[in-house]
């Protein structure tokens, strides 16, 4: 049974972060720095913003379900 989508999304972002960490250990030139600042950082930030908003909304949906049972 799948978990909450926000938690699965967090896990996916962690996996991508691991891949970036590994890549950045071997890729050290100026292109790598520009990629990190210009593409990786915005991608990571936008993902974090989405997942944070998703977590808050899923918390609300769960609370509504609990409060209106019966």
């Amino acid at each position, binding site marked *: 049974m*799948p978990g909450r*989508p*926000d938690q*699965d*999304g967090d896990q*996916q*972002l962690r*996996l*991508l972060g*691991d*891949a*970036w960490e*590994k*890549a*950045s*250990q*071997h*890729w*050290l030139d100026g*292109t790598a720095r520009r*990629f990190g600042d210009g*593409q990786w950082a*915005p*991608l990571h930030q*936008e*993902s974090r*913003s*989405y997942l944070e*908003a*998703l977590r*808050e*909304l*899923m918390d*609300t*949906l769960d609370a*509504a*379900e609990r*409060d*209106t049972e019966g």
Partner: protein
Amino acid sequence: MTGIHADIDALKGLHEALVRYRHAQREVADRAAGRIRAARASLEEKASRWQAQLALCQAELGACQERAAQADPDDPVDCSGYARAAEQSGEQLERIRRWQQRIDAEASEFAGPAGRFLDLLDNDLPRVEQHVLALIASLEAARRVQAPAP
């Protein structure tokens, strides 16, 4: 392929991770939208159920009050149970309505970051993937590394 090509291998790993991420997060976003739809439908169903329950309680209370109005003063009719049931049904319906309004408001707020994230998945991320592929090709060409056949 290791050693001097470690950067190429690392970039290939990053490219694969980016592709997996795009597909996985698209599925996450689809599931999130499904959860929102399901929660709204569930609340609407509960609201309908409690609306019907409230109408029934009010009808029973009205009938009781009519009997009470015609009852012998020495043998009064007690309608407090019906009144309590109608009040509780009304409170439950009101609670559900408040949650519906809150979820509508929060889902509306969520639409902003969700839309930007979907745009990232559909437009920005494929461009990042292409950029990484171009970097890999450039590094391979510079070192005369033969790229594997697709």
